[in-house]
C-alpha cells in the first residue's frame, strides 16, 4: 500500500508547520549554541518537508528538487556553523549565547561617538 495514499499532503504540511514551530522555539529559548544550531536544522528540514508535501499535493516534481537544494544548503550551513562554534568555544571557553554576547563599542547610550570632523583642521591658516 502506498504510504502517500494514507498520508495526504495536508498532513505533511501540518507536520512541517509543527516542526518549524519546534525549531523556532528552540532557537529562541535555547542558550547553548550547539542546540541553537540543531534547532536551525530542524527548521530547515521543516521547510524541506513543506516543499515535498506541497509538491505531492500538486503532483509536481519541483518540491523535491527544492528539497535537494535545501539538503545541500543545510550541509554547507552545518559545516560553517560547527566551525564557527569551535572557534567561539576556543576563544571564550563557553557556548552560552547570552554570556558571550558583547559588542565592545556599544554602551547603554549607544555608540560612543565623536564629532564627525574631529581633528579636521584646515591645512594652513587663512586669517
Amino acid at each position, binding site marked *: 500500500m502506498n504510504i502517500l495514499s494514507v498520508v495526504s499532503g495536508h498532513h505533511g504540511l501540518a507536520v512541517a508547520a509543527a516542526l518549524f514551530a519546534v525549531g*523556532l522555539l528552540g*532557537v*529562541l*529559548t535555547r*542558550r547553548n549554541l550547539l542546540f*541553537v544550531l540543531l534547532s536551525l536544522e530542524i527548521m530547515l528540514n521543516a521547510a524541506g518537508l513543506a516543499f515535498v508535501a506541497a509538491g505531492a499535493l500538486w503532483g509536481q516534481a519541483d518540491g523535491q528538487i527544492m528539497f535537494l537544494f535545501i539538503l545541500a544548503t543545510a550541509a554547507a550551513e552545518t559545516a560553517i556553523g560547527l566551525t564557527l562554534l569551535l572557534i567561539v568555544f576556543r576563544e571564550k571557553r563557553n557556548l552560552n*549565547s*547570552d554570556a558571550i*554576547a*558583547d*559588542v565592545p563599542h*556599544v554602551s547603554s*547610550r*549607544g*555608540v560612543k*561617538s565623536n564629532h*564627525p*570632523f574631529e*581633528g*579636521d*583642521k*584646515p*591645512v*594652513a*591658516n*587663512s*586669517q
Partner: protein
Amino acid sequence: MLDYLYLLPALPGAAFVVLAVLGKRLSQPVAAWVGVAPTAAAAAVTLAIAAECLAAPPRGGSFRQTLWTWLAAENFRVDVAFYLDPLAIVMAATVAVVAVFVLLHAVEYMAGDDGFSRFFAVMNLFVAAMLVLVLADNLLLLYVGWEGVGLCSYLLIGFWKRDPANGRAARKAFLVTRVGDTALLIGIVFLLVHLGTLDIHGLQVAARNAWAPGAACAVLAAAMMLAAAVAKSAQWPMHIWLPDAMAGPTPVSALLHAATMVTAGVYLVARLGVLFTLAPAVQWATAGIGSATMLLGGAAALTQTDLKRALAYSTMSQIGLMFAALGVGAATAAIFHFLTHAVFKSLLFLAAGSVMLAVGHSSDMARMGGLRRSLPRVYVAFLAGAAALAGLPFFSGFFSKEAILAELWSHGDGAHVLWAVGLAGAFLTAWYAFRLVFLVFHGPARVVVAHRPTWVARVPMLSLAALAVLAGWVQWPGVVENGQFVAHFLDASFDRILPSMSLAPEPTPATRWMLLTSATAAAIAGATLAWWTTHRVHARAAEKITQPASLFTRVLRYGVADRAWRAVAFAGLWIGNQLARMQTGRVRWYAATLAAVTVLAVLAAVFL
C-alpha cells in the same frame, strides 16, 4: 601626423607603467628622464598635429580616430575613440605644454624626496587621463578621464602621506568632487536613456532635434552637467576643497589645481554647449555661480597670509570668470581665458615653488619679503605672471579678460550687471595679484635665501613667463592673420555645433573703446591700490581696508554649504546611534525580531 593621435595619452601612460613597476629601482636622474621625456614627446606630437591642422584642416573640420570597440550590445555601442577639433587641439596643446614645463620644474622641486618616482608616476598618469578627457569622442570615455584625473588629484594632494592633515585634505577633495562625479554619471545615463547615444556630437544633434529650448529634459540634463562642472572646477558652493588641496607639492598645485584639472568643468560646459543653449535657466545659473565665485574668490585671495592659498582662491575666481562667460554663451572667450590662465597661473605657482624652496619649504608670506634682490629671475617671472593675471594692458590676461568683458557687455541689457561684476572682479584681481608681488618680493628681507633655482627650474619659469607676456598677441590684428586668431580658430569648433546660436551684434567702436578703457582702468587702479596698501599704509590700516573681504572669507569657509554638509553628517550619526541600540549582541533577540517581523509581514501580505 593625425594618425599618431593615440600617442598623446599613450606616451605618458607608458611612462606611468614603467615608473609604477620599476619605480624604486630607478635612480633619480633616470626616473626624471622617464618622467619628463615621454610627456615632452607627447607635447611635440600635439604641436605637430596642431600645426598640421592649421595648415590643412582635416575634412569636415574634425578628425576621429577609433582604436577599438569597448562595448557593443544590440543598438548600444561605445568605442574607444578620440575626436580632434579646434577645441580639442587648444585644450590638448595647453595641457601637454604646461605639463612639460611643470614636470621639468618638479625635477628640481622634488629632488631628494623619498617618493620621487612615485610622484612622477602619478603625474604622468594624470597627464594621460587629462588628455583622454579632452580628446574623448563619447561621454563614457570622457568619464574615464574625468575619474582618472580625480584619482590622481587625490593621490597627489595626499602625496606627503606622513602628515595626517594632507590625507584629510586629499579625502576632502575626493569626496567633494565625487558629488559632482555622481551628478555627471546620472547626467550621462539620463542622456543615454533619452537620446540613445553617448557620442558627444551625435548626442547634441539628437538633443536639438528632440528637445525644444527650455524643455524639462534638457534643463535636467544640463543641470546635472553643471553640477559636475561646479564640483570639479571648485565653484561656489563646492569650492571648499580647493584651498585645502594646496597641501600637495607645489608642482601639483601648478598643473592640477591651477592649469588643467580644475578647468575640466569649463571644458565640459563648453563641449556640451548645445545642451546648455537648450536650457536657458541653467545658463543663467552658470553665469550667476561664476560671477559669485569670482567676487568671493577674489575677496578671499586678498586676505590670505599663505602664498599658495592666495593663489588657490585666485584660481577659483578666474575660473568663475570663465563660467560667467560660458553662461552667456561666449565659449570662445572662456576657452581663450582658459589658455592664458593655464600659462600665467602655472607660472605663478612654479615661481611660488621656487620662492618656497628659497625660504625653506614654507608658503607663509610672513617669512617672505624683499626677495627681488636675491631671486631676480624668479621675481621677473612672478611679475610677468602677476601682470598677466591682473590684466595689465598687452599682457596675455588682458586680451582674454577683455574678450570676456566685451561678451558680457554685449549679451543684453540684463548682462550689463554681469559686466559690472566682471569689472569689479578684474579690479580685485589686480589688487590681490600685486599685493602678492609686493609682499613677497618688496619690502625688507626676512630670511636668508637657502636655495637658488638652477637651470632645470629657470627654463620652465622663463619660458612660461615669455608665453604669459606674448600669448595674447596672437589676437592682435596683423600679428597672426588679421586679428582674433584664436577666436576664429575656436569658432570653427563651436559654429558647427551651434549653427542656430545667434551671436550678439558687434559693439560699436565707441563701446569697444569704453570697454577697453574701463578694463585697463580697473587693472591699473587695483595695482595702484595694492602698492598703496603695502607701501604707504600702516599694516593695521591695511587690515581695516581688507576687513570686509575677510568677512567674505568667513562666509566661504563656514558658509551655508558647509553647515549643510555638517547637518547631513550629524543626522547620519544620530540615526546611527539610535539604531545601534538594537545591536545588543544577543542572538536570541535577533532571532525573535526576525521571526516577529516575518510573521507580521506574512500577515500583512495575506490580510491587507
